């Protein structure tokens, strides 16, 4: 894939993808992602960003199992194969899309 053909992936999306790829195979909660981002991700915006990643097809999500005492089940997120490929490609060329322009 040529550098210029790489899809756009803003910084926060890139960061989320990095965390999900690093935990490949393991589904993660939004709060887990926030905790592991060392303050880069915020609880108020994580789900908006995850929803965008999902609409691009880079992550999948599903509700956690319903248990007694849980009013609203949380969602678990996992990177897709395509998402992992895009992330690795961007990583190889130096990171997120905001670096892509600088490299063009």
């Amino acid at each position: 894939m040529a550098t210029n053909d790489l899809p756009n992936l803003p910084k926060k999306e890139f960061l989320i993808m990095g965390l999900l790829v690093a935990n490949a195979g393991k589904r993660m909660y939004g709060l887990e992602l926030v905790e592991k981002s060392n303050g880069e991700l915020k609880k108020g915006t994580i789900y908006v960003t995850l929803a965008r990643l999902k609409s691009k097809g880079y992550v999948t999500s599903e509700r956690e199992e319903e248990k007694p005492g849980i009013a609203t089940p949380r969602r678990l997120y996992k990177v897709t194969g395509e998402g992992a490929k895009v992330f690795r490609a961007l990583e190889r060329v130096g990171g997120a899309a905001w670096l892509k322009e600088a490299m063009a």
Partner: protein
Amino acid sequence: MSDDCRSTEKSGADWLELELERLQYRVPMDSADADWVVQQLTARRASYQAPFATQSFPIMAEVLAQDPMLDPNESFFFGPQTGRPGQGTVTSNATEESDKVAATGQVTGKGVDEKATYDANVAVDKVTAKIELPPGSNMLTVARQIFSTEQVEEVFEPLVADYQYEYFKEMHRGADRRTLAAFDRQYGLRYVWAIVRELGPVIWRVIVAIGVALKIAG
């Protein structure tokens, strides 16, 4: 109370003692009152395990009758128990007499005939016990009116789920009302911010459309 309820009480003895101590510190009680509070707290502890949808019940009226400083919002901690042998069913009613409240509470062990009834007969400043939903319920209701099902499922439900998860985790640790109120404020702001983020592209398109229209017209 049933034996099973007593065993629940034993397994959570530390927690109960702490709660009881807290209440006794705030409200001088005789031993009969203390027994009643233990029963209430046992049922309250058991109710944490019940499906939350069943927990909208104004049972705090009794404790509020003794301690008007307790938050009426704690009423949602209580609720009928479902399908768990040995857990208590808690019911209550509060009647108003002018600006005073007389509260009556009843604790019933499931599967046994024995009933422990407490009549507070305490006249204190009027306290309104209201039916409470889990935190974040209103947020979801409003979001469902504004956004698509997909947006609600992907953005607002997880946000509210985190809110409830963190809120109840702190509540189980015995957090005070101030800590819990802080969660209300923080998640309220996050909710508003999420709405802004979701509506942002729409608002931007409207602004651009108005700009284009003005350019064409002018």
